């Protein structure tokens, strides 16, 4: 038994030594000899294991590629989202820069932070600027498109603004041509944020004034909160109301509050100044309005001058001796009649296209004086075309005679 055990131990040891020797021989074999042995093993005994390993490697590679592809796709999608957001923000900031350049002073730029709670209708915004930056309660909040709202609470670092969609919002407004004035309210009846989006109402428009759809409505500057000339919205249609003495119009706001991210808060100094030069369209409309008013004034002045001239002529009729002095009146009238022939046409065209109303009105006034004489000369000619100017012609040109 002991002998058998010793024998088996020797066999075990011999096997071990043999394994070590063969391993050592394999280690010291030259490459060109060990490679065929390894290759024969790979092609025979180890072939199934090689297949398993290559399959496992392929799975792993596919898994890694899939993960990598997914990550790349995610990155691309994220970049796409960022690109759209950046482009939108870039456009908005460009507009804001343009607005700032036009306003020059009197504003505080701020970022508009929407509330964390998702609202169907955005009615308030948190602004990243406060009293330290010069913002006060009721400071107007504007964007490059127009009115956004006004500051309701102002803290040192932040402020809360109510938007025009807020039920408490009011703004004095006017039409672009300045013919209609009213108060802008949020349109609450049909539900803000629904199919119609954010809408406004222009109430209190005089009944005699009719606004056409598409007409732009601006702040009027009345009330002192909003400066004059900031766009509010566009007239959509008239709303039927129970009031019979005023009209109410539905407005499409210029600004979409849900998309506002950057705004400008006007400081009190700026609020006192008109902003007609900032929003170009308002300036053009105002210029046209001023021209119309100036033209109306010159017509009044012309009518007054005519009546004065006629009164003078009537006085002259009462004193025939003094009026019978032809050299004093007639030669001038003759000259004027010659000079004045083309002028009526020029005067008419001047009334239409007139930017420098004052200069034209001066010319017009001087021409008006002439026109009195001119008219009288014309009337004289029409009465007696073949005769020269005579003393009694003045008598016949008198307004009382003609009328």
């Amino acid at each position: 038994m002991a002998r058998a055990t010793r024998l088996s131990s020797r066999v075990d040891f011999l096997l071990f030594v043999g394994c070590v020797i063969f391993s050592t021989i394999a280690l010291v074999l030259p490459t060109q000899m060990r490679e065929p042995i390894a290759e024969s093993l790979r092609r025979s005994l180890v072939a199934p294991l090689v297949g398993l390993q290559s399959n496992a490697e392929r799975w792993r590679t596919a898994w890694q590629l899939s993960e990598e592809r997914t990550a790349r796709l995610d990155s691309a999608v994220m970049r796409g989202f960022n690109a759209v957001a950046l482009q939108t923000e870039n456009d908005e900031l460009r507009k804001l820069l343009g607005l700032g350049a036009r306003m020059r002073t009197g504003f505080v730029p701020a970022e508009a932070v929407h509330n964390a709670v998702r609202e169907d209708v955005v009615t308030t915004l948190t602004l990243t600027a406060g009293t330290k930056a010069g913002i006060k309660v009721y400071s107007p909040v504007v964007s490059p498109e127009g009115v956004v709202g006004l500051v309701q609470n102002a803290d040192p670092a932040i402020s809360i603004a109510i938007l025009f969609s807020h039920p408490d919002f009011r703004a004095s407004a006017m039409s672009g041509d300045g013919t209609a004035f009213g108060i802008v309210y949020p349109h609450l009846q049909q539900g803000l944020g629904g199919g119609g989006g954010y809408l406004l109402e222009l109430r209190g428009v005089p009944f005699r004034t009719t606004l056409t759809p598409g007409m732009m409505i601006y702040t009027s500057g009345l009330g002192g909160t909003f400066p004059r000339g900031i766009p509010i919205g566009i007239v959509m249609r008239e709303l039927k109301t129970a009031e019979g003495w005023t009209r109410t119009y539905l407005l499409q706001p210029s600004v979409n509050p849900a998309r506002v991210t950057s705004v400008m808060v006007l400081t009190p100094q700026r609020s006192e100044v008109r902003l007609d030069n900032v929003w170009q369209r308002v300036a053009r409309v105002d210029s046209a309005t001023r021209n119309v008013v100036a033209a109306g004034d010159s017509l009044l002045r012309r009518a007054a001058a005519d009546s004065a001239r006629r009164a003078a002529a009537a006085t002259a009729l009462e004193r025939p001796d003094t009026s019978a002095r032809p050299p004093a009146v007639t030669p001038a009238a003759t000259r004027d009649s010659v000079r004045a022939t083309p002028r009526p046409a020029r005067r008419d065209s001047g009334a239409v296209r007139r930017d420098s109303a004052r200069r034209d009105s001066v010319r017009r006034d001087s021409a008006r004086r002439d026109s009195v004489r001119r008219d009288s000369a014309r009337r004289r000619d029409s009465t007696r075309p073949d005769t020269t100017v005579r003393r009694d012609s003045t008598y016949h040109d008198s307004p009382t005679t003609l009328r």
Partner: protein
Amino acid sequence: MSWTNAVRTAVICAILIVLHYTLRPLLAWRASIDFLIIALMFGSVRMRPGLAALFGFALGLVSDSLSPGAFGAAALGMSVVGFGASWLKAVFFADNLALNGFFIFLGKWTFDLIFILVGHRVHGGELFMQIVVWSSHAAAVTALAGVLAISLLRPLMEVRTA
């Protein structure tokens, strides 16, 4: 060892060998589990030392055939580990999970030591790092996996007594 146990051991070793060529490449850890060492230790403690050395030699050749740069190094290392495991198990018998884990750790680390030193693959500081850090980590991971496998397969296994 009866034929039944021999077949069971063979099947378990075969499964572990297959895992070595399927699960290990999938995991691709820096300190990976060496299922061949676990299979060798499983088999060795149920064989005579001479057979364990042969088993190790065979497994080493299989491993060497896929890494011909150090052909023979794995065969040498596994022969030593197999013979040593079988001899130690015969001398110091203990059916203890911790001891089995320690054996597997020791076997793996010894194998790595022989494989690295004989194969002349790394030198200097890198050799030190490989032996002390990465081989130790790999041995620990292998020991853990071995302990897990033993605890799962214990009902099927029968430990050879001296």
